[in-house]
């Protein structure tokens, strides 16, 4: 009995031992199978389940003006999509979403009923709309952040900045030319997620870094661009013209400060405009320059040494027959010096100078000025203009005064800048710097010399001649800017009729191109008005816009006049009652401060304008603190100005 019990106990021990042993072996076997044999496959499967791929879309870089003001910026906005297969209550979902999105209910229901797994409902939703829909937690409705390009200055510099498509790839302007720089590269990140699908940050493993787009800093100045656009629009509207262009360039460097087209467009809604409105005509279109071209003929002749400024030409009283054609001058003259040929814009005089220079030399000089070839400005679609290879008949004569050649506005301004800066042709450019996403400079573009075209002496002679255009009796007097010497040239060119391929009797291009201040040029400005109605002369339609752009830009850039101004500021003459200071007190008030020498006048009670007038008259520099009426000054009235003490006046706003 005892043995039997012992035996049974032993059997049980063996059975349980065997059971556990087998179980252990099974576990070990299974572990071997899973951990060793199936390892790779299962790891992949697990990663798929708890890892999440997040695409890292790089933010497109900004486009900034030279002062850092954004001209184009990207922000992320939510786009709403639907997964129709997951939506059970199509009618209900459509009824809820339709009023929020402003889409007709039937249209939305049709979208939600599509036999697709994905469809866009509305892209780039305003944040509040997106939040409202998100809060509803509708099944089958989702959101994805998408980058949207914004142009905060709307129409300002639209043609230069360009625009992007939905991708978002650049389609025009700087956006297109520098697309690779601005766009950056897409990357992705693998994140681990918990059972609820939430991302767990610590184990994020960036597999491929996205490189954010770089920002582009332009040479453009938003304020100068606005001035140019405003004055151009005014000139085009006043002359009932078809359109116009304006360009402001730094004469010495080739930096483009403003590039305006009219009519312009809103890059935030570019699809509403025709293709012709989207084209940057300043670089993409070429036109016959007309009389502005005479400057280059005469500069070439002076450089070649075939004429001198004082040489006199017979201008045939306005009619000059060459072969079977007759050349006319709008204002007939008998004899004119080379300088006067520019001043009065004589076609006959220019043609005769062209003949003296000869076809080959003129052609070479014109090509050296950059005509007939692209300037290389950093904008897409640049036109090279056109200069004939072989000249026949009266080509030499007509080209000498700007007919039979075509050029773009950027070529014209670049070539005039060469005269302004002493004879060096500079490469025009629009991008000054490239910054990375942290604002660090990656690349800087410096002014580039293309070639020397004419000598500084010739450039100076031509500059003096161009100054006569805006002087008394010249064709461009409306371009004269008070206080500054202005050199320029008017142009009125006939347009070729696209139907008849002959010069149109009524269609003209009026232009004015010049630089200011003529003695130390800073800015080269061109204004071109396309098909003005009524009076079509460049000196009438374009010169006033040139003047306004030059005047405002010079003031903005703080370039002070170097000539006496026509105005004579008189105390209180232009001020209203409120601005006139109270009657000065008896102690030391100087009635006419201009006669007071280096003695500090009594400024107390005077308005800032009065003080400024006195300062201008006396040529004294006083530090002005505050605004309103002068209440305190140093040194006191009647004391000598100079020494080490600072000269200042404190103002306080009048009640």
């Amino acid at each position, binding site marked *: 009995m005892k043995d039997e019990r012992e035996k049974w106990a032993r059997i049980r021990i063996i059975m349980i031992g065997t059971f556990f042993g087998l179980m252990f072996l099974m576990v070990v076997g299974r572990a071997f199978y899973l951990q060793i044999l199936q390892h790779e496959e299962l790891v992949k499967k697990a990663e798929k389940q708890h890892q999440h791929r997040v695409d890292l879309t790089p933010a497109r870089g900004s486009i900034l003006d030279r002062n850092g003001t954004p001209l184009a910026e990207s*922000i*992320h906005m939510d786009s709403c999509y639907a997964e129709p297969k997951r939506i059970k209550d199509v009618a209900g979902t459509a009824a809820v979403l339709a009023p929020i999105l402003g889409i007709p209910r039937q249209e939305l229901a049709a979208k939600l009923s599509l036999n697709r797994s994905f469809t866009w409902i509305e892209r780039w939703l305003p944040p509040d709309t997106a939040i409202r829909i998100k809060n509803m937690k509708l099944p089958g409705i989702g959101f994805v952040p998408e980058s949207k390009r914004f142009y*905060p200055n709307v*129409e300002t510099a639209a043609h230069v900045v360009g625009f992007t498509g939905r991708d978002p790839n650049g389609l025009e302007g700087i956006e297109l030319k520098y697309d690779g720089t601005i766009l950056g590269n897409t990357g992705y990140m693998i994140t681990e997620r*918990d059972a609820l699908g939430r991302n*767990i940050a610590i184990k994020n493993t960036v597999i491929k870094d996205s490189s954010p787009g770089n920002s582009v800093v332009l040479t453009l100045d938003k304020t100068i661009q606005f001035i140019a656009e405003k004055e151009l629009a005014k000139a085009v509207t006043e002359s009932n013209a078809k359109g116009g262009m304006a360009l402001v360039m730094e004469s010495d460097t080739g930096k483009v400060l403003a590039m305006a087209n009219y009519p312009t467009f809103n890059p935030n809604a570019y699809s509403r405009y025709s293709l012709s409105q989207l084209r940057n005509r300043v670089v993409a279109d070429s036109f016959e320059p007309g009389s502005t071209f005479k400057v280059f003929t005469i500069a070439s002749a002076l450089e070649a040494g075939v004429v001198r400024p004082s040489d006199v030409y017979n201008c045939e009283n306005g009619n000059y027959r060459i072969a079977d054609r007759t050349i006319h001058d709008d204002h007939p003259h008998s004899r004119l010096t080379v300088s006067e040929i520019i001043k009065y814009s004589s076609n006959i005089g220019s043609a005769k100078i062209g003949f003296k220079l000869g076809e080959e030399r003129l052609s070479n000089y014109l090509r050296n000025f950059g005509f007939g070839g692209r300037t290389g400005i950093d904008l897409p679609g640049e036109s090279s203009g056109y200069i004939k290879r072989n000249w026949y008949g009266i080509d030499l004569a007509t080209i000498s005064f700007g007919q039979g050649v075509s050029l773009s506005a950027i070529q014209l301004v670049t070539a005039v800048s060469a005269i302004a800066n002493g004879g060096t042709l500079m490469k025009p450019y629009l991008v000054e710097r490239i910054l990375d996403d942290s604002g660090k400079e990656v690349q800087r573009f410096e002014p580039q010399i293309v070639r020397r075209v004419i000598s500084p002496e010739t450039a100076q002679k031509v500059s003096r001649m161009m100054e006569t255009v805006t002087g008394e009796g010249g064709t461009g007097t409306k371009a004269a800017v008070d206080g500054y010497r202005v050199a320029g040239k008017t142009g009125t060119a006939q347009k070729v009729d696209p139907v008849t391929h002959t010069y149109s009797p009524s269609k003209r291009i009026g232009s004015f191109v010049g630089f200011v201040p003529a003695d130390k040029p800073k800015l080269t400005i061109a204004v071109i008005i396309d098909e003005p109605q009524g009076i079509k002369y460049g000196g009438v339609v374009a010169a006033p816009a040139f003047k306004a752009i030059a005047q405002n830009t010079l*003031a903005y850039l703080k370039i002070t006049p170097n000539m006496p101004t026509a*105005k004579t500021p008189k105390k209180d003459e232009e001020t209203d009652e409120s601005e006139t200071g109270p009657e000065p007190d008896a102690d030391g008030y100087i009635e006419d401060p201009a006669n007071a020498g280096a003695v500090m006048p009594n400024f107390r009670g005077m308005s800032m304008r009065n003080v400024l007038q006195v300062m201008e008259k006396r040529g004294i*520099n006083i530090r002005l603190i505050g605004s309103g009426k002068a209440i305190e000054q140093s040194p006191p009235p009647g004391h000598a100005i100079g020494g080490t003490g600072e000269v200042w006046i404190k103002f306080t706003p009048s009640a």
Partner: protein
Amino acid sequence: MAQARADYGKVAAPRAFGGAELASHRIDIFKYLMICMILFTIVSVFHVWSRFRLVELNLQITEVSRQLKDAEQEQKCLKLEAASLKTPARIETIAKNELGMALPNELQVIHVK
């Protein structure tokens, strides 16, 4: 019998297995095991707690990162809005139409060198 008892005394009245000495040993082992188990439990609980805490903190980091991203986005939007409000065309329109201002004429501009 008596002889047998004398001879096989240990068999007839065997001493308790282990005796007092062994019993004290058993208590030591038990104590040791208990300590080990408690330690093991504490370590296990701590491990689990730390894992939970880690996940929780990671979730917090994710949330803060999202908030940061949202704030950056908001900042970008505000900058954009500021830029659009500062456009010269808008300022000029407001100055002229709402504030009754006008551009200064040539006589009103005084250059001070």
